[in-house]
């Protein structure tokens, strides 16, 4: 029953999406607003139906309805309540529903926000959104239906992938998908601009905040993913250059480039073509990311499944890229810029360089990710490029980007005079050099760490210089200090939101550098009562205990930790799930601003007399998460409605 209703609603939604897409496109071509209105109704219908599908599937999970194949595959009677909800999007079929739902939601918001303005672009954008939605509903109908039946009905299900039994799993996919799907809107408006032949700045202005929102969610998704990897996977790291991490990182890189290059087009009317191509690339990369995760083309810890879905995605990716770039070629003459760069030393060229570096980083990540495929296709050998490749190529790129982060926002437009450079950068450069010297004096011998530190101080100083100068100007006209700073942030929220995001990135960069340069680890086997030492910590092994949980068996080690004082007992564990061959590590840790103590339980004697323990002291990792919070605040500031008109 549930299965039939769910499948029926999916099919109706698909029909509505196809109809709505065609109606909106016809309405755009003929200018008949009745057609566009009809498409709007279709979009509302789709949203309602997909929401109902989602609710129905959640209900099936909560009631252990094993007559539905997807439920039986991803839950069992022991799955706790909370994970029965997150289990809804724990695998392929459910994540496609979540994706479609978000896309439908964005389509509704687009209708509400842009129906009145943007007469020429809006119908085409709506048509694009509905077309993309139709594709995802098609996948839901023919390739990955979450409502497929199962006969005979099994007594119990298989259970959720144990690694997904974590609170991070409610937020990570949601944030990531909001980011992925969010880039559909700028893409839809870019397509509208090309279709309508209005490739000016209108589409950019309309989608500015959409882009920031999508970028923000994508950043958040990546950060939560890092946190999940750090505290669940038990290898002590937060980023592994895994193909699927890369799949989310590539659109982030091009999306970041796009966020910056739109500012040049708004100001100088150049880079029209570049911006359109960037947004197409970003959207294409989100599809590529989905293709990677869903098709199993490249082996990865995340890869869900293989099946006909891969062919569908590949076909759609081909359709999107060829159509979009075909439109670019068609509008080629209109897209060519009127302006030119005046000087190499200017804000435009700083931003342009930033774009080149970001796209280069995206390209190297892409190259590294598909390299195993390439080598298999050309030489017949399976090889992967590992983290060393990605680190070696990307570290210089990212360092240069951070440096530009200091230069870009302050250097003059068009042509920077020596005076301008001196006024803005003299003190920051001096401070940066001093910072490097201090770091050296404090015993930092890693050139990379010192360089990162110096660059970070330089950028932080440029931001301070700017804020101090602007505040001073306001104080001079008689404002008080706090209202002056507050007003500044509110009136120029995009600029200062950007600065705060930059600060967040700087903090993250420090955390990444620190954790790479100064983390230490050891692995040792202890008998009961014996102690191990690492970096000032002493751990005593107190024994093992075992517990039967609702859906797994757990062996817990107890370790009493002291440094100069008692720090309590840490309990890393191993979880044994019946459906998994290998036990799952359960990490225990003590987070700190300076360092984290991180314990992973290894092999143990069954009688509890001895255990192997991996001890890590990870330095500065917490700053990555703190940087994420700062970034969040900055992004929120930048998303606020602009108040400049009243200034």
């Amino acid at each position, binding site marked *: 029953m549930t299965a039939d209703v769910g499948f029926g609603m999916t099919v109706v939604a698909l029909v509505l999406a196809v109809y709505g897409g065609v109606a909106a496109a016809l309405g755009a071509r003929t200018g008949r607003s009745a057609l566009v209105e009809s498409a709007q109704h279709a979009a509302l219908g789709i949203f309602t139906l997909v929401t109902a599908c989602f609710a129905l599937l959640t209900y099936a999970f909560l009631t252990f309805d094993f007559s539905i*194949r997807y439920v039986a595959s991803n839950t069992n009677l022991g799955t706790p309540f909370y994970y029965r909800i997150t289990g809804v999007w724990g695998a392929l079929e459910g994540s496609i529903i979540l994706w479609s739902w978000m896309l439908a939601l964005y389509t509704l918001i687009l209708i509400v926000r842009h129906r009145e303005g943007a007469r020429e672009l809006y119908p085409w954008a709506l048509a694009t959104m509905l077309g993309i939605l139709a594709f995802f509903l098609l996948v839901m109908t023919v390739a990955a239906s979450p409502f497929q039946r199962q006969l005979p009905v099994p007594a119990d299900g298989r259970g959720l992938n144990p690694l997904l039994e974590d609170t991070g799993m409610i937020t990570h996919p949601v944030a990531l998908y909001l980011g992925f799907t969010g880039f559909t809107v700028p893409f839809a408006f870019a397509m509208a601009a090309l279709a309508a032949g209005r490739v000016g700045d209108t589409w950019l202005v309309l989608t500015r905040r959409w882009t920031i929102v999508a970028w923000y969610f994508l950043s958040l998704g990546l950060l939560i993913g890092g946190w999940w990897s750090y505290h669940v996977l038990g290898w002590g790291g937060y980023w592994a250059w895994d193909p699927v991490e890369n799949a989310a990182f590539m659109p982030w890189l091009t999306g970041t480039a796009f966020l910056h290059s739109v500012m040049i087009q708004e100001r100088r009317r150049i880079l029209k073509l570049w911006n359109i191509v960037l947004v197409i690339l970003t959207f294409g990369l989100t599809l590529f990311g989905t293709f990677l995760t869903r098709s199993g*083309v490249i*082996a990865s810890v995340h890869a869900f499944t293989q099946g006909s879905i*891969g*062919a569908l995605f590949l076909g759609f990716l081909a359709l999107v890229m060829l159509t979009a770039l075909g439109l670019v070629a068609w509008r080629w003459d209109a897209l060519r810029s009127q302006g030119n760069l005046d000087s190499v030393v200017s804000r435009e060229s700083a931003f342009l360089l930033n774009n080149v570096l970001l796209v280069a980083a995206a390209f190297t990540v892409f190259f590294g990710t*598909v390299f195993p*495929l390439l080598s298999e296709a050309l030489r017949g050998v399976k090889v992967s490029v590992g983290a060393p490749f990605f680190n070696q190529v990307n570290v210089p790129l990212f360092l240069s980007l951070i440096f530009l982060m200091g230069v870009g926002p302050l250097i003059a437009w068009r042509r920077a005079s020596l005076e301008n450079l001196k006024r803005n950068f003299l003190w920051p450069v001096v401070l940066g050099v001093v910072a490097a010297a201090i770091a050296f004096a404090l015993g930092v011998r890693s050139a990379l760490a010192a360089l990162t530190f110096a660059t970070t101080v330089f950028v932080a100083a440029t931001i301070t210089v700017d804020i101090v100068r602007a505040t001073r100007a306001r104080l001079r006209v008689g404002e008080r200090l706090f209202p002056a700073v507050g007003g500044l942030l509110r009136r120029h929220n995009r600029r200062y939101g950007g600065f705060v995001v930059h600060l967040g990135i700087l903090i993250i960069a420090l955390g990444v550098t620190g954790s790479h340069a100064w983390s230490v680890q050891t692995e040792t086997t202890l008998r009961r009562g014996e102690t191990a030492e690492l970096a000032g910590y002493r751990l005593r092994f107190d024994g093992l205990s075992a517990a039967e949980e609702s859906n797994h068996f757990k062996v817990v080690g107890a370790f009493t930790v002291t440094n100069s004082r008692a720090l309590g007992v840490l309990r890393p564990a191993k979880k044994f799930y*019946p459906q998994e*061959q290998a036990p799952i590590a359960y990490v225990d840790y003590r987070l700190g601003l300076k360092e984290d103590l991180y314990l992973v339980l290894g092999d143990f004697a069954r009688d509890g007399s001895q255990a192997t323990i991996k001890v890590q002291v990870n330095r500065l990792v917490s700053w990555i998460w703190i940087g994420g919070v700062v970034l969040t605040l900055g992004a929120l500031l930048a998303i606020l409605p602009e108040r400049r008109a009243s200034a």
Partner: protein
Amino acid sequence: MRRLWRWLIPLAVLPVLVLLAYGFRMSPRDIPSPLLDKPAPTFALTTLEGAPLMLAAHRGKVVVLNFWASWCYPGCYEEAPILEKNWRAYRERGVVVLGVAIQDKREAAEKFVRDFGLTFPNAQDLTGTVSVDFGVYGVPETFFLDRQGRIRVKHVSAVTDVVFRETVERLLAETGAR
């Protein structure tokens, strides 16, 4: 010339698409088992009914050794009826189907056997040593052994009717030692 040149932009993505299409046809998990064409590890288990189950006792027959679990869903649920049907069809021709349940609870395994009416011998691998010896990575996995007791085919994921019949027919057609 100018006009033609710009159409190269969309064409630029073609190589990438071709590469992905190629990759799509390969399976990254397709790593050949090192056990192929080697004598199968021996084992002695006890069936769920309590009878001894020794691999060595079936030398001279084509053996279909299936690793399963009652929680292995949906793969094991798909192949169980197929294994039973073919076991009935081929048992007179010198083919034996053996089931080994891994990491399973006894009651659940018994219910599975009952639900599908399985009549071929099924045993529990309580210590996990048999599945480790055979290099089982996940369930279901099925090994096809020839009359000399060598592992000839390793099939990952649910066995289909076609796979069963074609493999078994091929192994039956072989006469003596290779």
